[in-house]
């Protein structure tokens, strides 16, 4: 137990060292705005991937409407800063909360649905959210809404760390195990006394909260948000991160978020090529490596293995 705790703090410290180095580079002008922006994008995409990972990868609830929660976070936070003159941090939080409430609303009725039916229902919910924004003049309808630039490397990174810590801690507890048991065998989970409804909704709510936060960051990183940014293709962009990483692997989701964000930055000028590559990757992964890059394993498992082997070979009581 003690060891686990210290690994946790070690990771946190390393993360902040990384943050500091990047921040220094930005301040010194070594990283031009293009790279900074890419880094921010990576943070946002990791938040999205990890939050969806909780719903699909951990709890096994196949949601393909994550962009709906992203949209809510984006719009609500933009309303907060642009219309109500609230501070950015509050706006982010508000976006997360409203998205989480929507997660509750979507989660509860969706519980009666399984597998592909649930998928279609989440897609429907996301479309409804988008159409609602499309029809509200207050937020600019189809033309969208102007948003000031407020997202920085620091805010994105803090949100990212918060997301990962919360979701990792949730996963590594009785609550996370309950969610995984639902994914593995819902009927058995139920028979073991797990309130499956409660945990499915909890996964939706937590996942949506962070999608909402990502939405706030996303909105304040552009100069404009439009309902068209949050259609099914956006949900698909998030879905592919989770699938490629390996359903059930958080580090897989993180790695593929980094990888694909970089790839799409290079393909920015060629959106069709990008979509062809994305969809081809998705199909090929499903056909030839359905477990994705990482399966359900985590990076730390490899690390653990390596340590274990070394300990076994050497002095058992040394380390």
């Amino acid at each position, binding site marked *: 137990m003690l060891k686990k705790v210290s690994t946790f703090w070690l990771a946190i410290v390393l993360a902040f060292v990384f943050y500091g180095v990047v921040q220094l580079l930005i301040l010194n002008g070594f990283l031009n705005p293009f790279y900074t922006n890419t880094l921010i994008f990576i943070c946002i995409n990791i938040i999205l991937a990890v939050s969806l990972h909780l719903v699909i990868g951990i709890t096994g609830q*196949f949601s*393909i409407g994550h962009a709906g929660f992203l949209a809510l976070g984006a719009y609500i936070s933009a309303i907060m800063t642009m219309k109500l003159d609230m501070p950015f941090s509050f706006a982010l939080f508000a976006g997360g909360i409203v998205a989480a409430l929507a997660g509750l609303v979507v989660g509860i*009725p969706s519980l*009666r*649905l399984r*597998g*592909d*039916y649930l*998928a*279609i*229902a989440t*897609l*429907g*919910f996301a*479309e*409804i959210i988008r*159409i*609602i924004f*499309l*029809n509200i003049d207050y937020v600019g309808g189809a033309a969208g809404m102007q948003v000031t630039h407020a997202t920085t490397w620091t805010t994105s990174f803090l949100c990212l760390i918060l997301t990962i810590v919360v979701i990792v801690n949730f996963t590594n507890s009785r609550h996370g195990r309950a969610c995984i048991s639902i994914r593995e065998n819902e*009927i058995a989970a139920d028979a073991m006394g797990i309130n499956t409804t409660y945990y499915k909704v909890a996964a939706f709510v937590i996942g949506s909260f962070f999608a909402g936060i990502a939405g706030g960051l996303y909105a304040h990183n552009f100069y404009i948000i439009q309902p068209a940014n949050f259609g*099914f*293709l956006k949900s*698909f962009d998030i*879905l592919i991160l989770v*699938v490629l990483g390996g*359903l059930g692997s958080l580090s897989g989701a993180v790695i593929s978020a980094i990888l694909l964000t970089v790839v799409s930055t290079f393909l920015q000028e060629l959106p*069709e*090529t990008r*979509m*062809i590559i*994305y*969809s*081809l990757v*998705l*199909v090929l992964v*499903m*056909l030839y490596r*359905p477990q994705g890059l990482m399966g359900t394993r985590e990076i730390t498992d490899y690390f653990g293995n390596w340590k274990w082997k070394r300990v076994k070979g050497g002095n058992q009581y040394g380390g």
Partner: protein
Amino acid sequence: MEWLQQLFNGISLGSIYALIALGYTMVYGIIKLINFAHGEVFMIGSFTGFYAIAFWGLGFFPALILSMAVCAVFGVLIERVAYKRLRDSTRIAALITAIGVSLLIQYVVIYIRGAQPEAYPNVLPNRSFDVFGVQISSQSLLILVVSVVLMIVLQFIVHRTKIGKAMRAVSYDPDAAKLMGINVNNTISATFAIGSALAGAAGVIFGVYYTKIDPLMGVIPGLKAFIAAVLGGIGIIPGAVIGGFVLGIVETVVSALGFSLWRDAAAFIILILILIFRPSGIFGKNSKEKV
């Protein structure tokens, strides 16, 4: 009279949904897969018809038949290349693949010919009749007749022919069907062929009726048709037809009431309500999962 007019428009739109929904329902019935790429088959059918009419000068019926044939082959190809390997994998894996295939087709088409829309040529004589104050164009009448004929042909195939019986047997119980000596692979391919041909026909009809087509045209009608299939009870052929008509009428009514921007939302709201309150659809039987 205004209402009668809307009703007629709704039925025309509904017949397109119904034709596409049939493919969804047949495929779902037989391999329990939501074939997301079905909307793209519809799009390919529409473009095939367009090229056949605009460049080769074919008439409506030859173009319709050609596009049905092309789509049948295309549908079988999708099944053989992408879905066949997935028969024993999880439903989620199959669904993800289907989503991938759908997007792949859309963007390959955009890559090849660009995203710009195309204006469908006028192949049908267009005269209007006035029936009890309802304006009925000869075009929409013909389209309706074609749709209904195709549905009747399908009904005949499913209930009277050998392949139809095989399809019903496989969808009822694939293992038992195999033991009875039915070639399951061929039956599944035949299902894809028939469903895709219907989507191809819907594509041509859509083009003629709405006159504008583009590579992403399959997305929304595809989803709507899926909703129609769920509404009628997925896997049930008459259900898909009724679901299509109901959805078409509801959408037209919503538009007529002045909420045209909410038209798409109406369909999704119907979907969610039906999934929550009667997931087996209007005609489906509720069944409990065996434990």
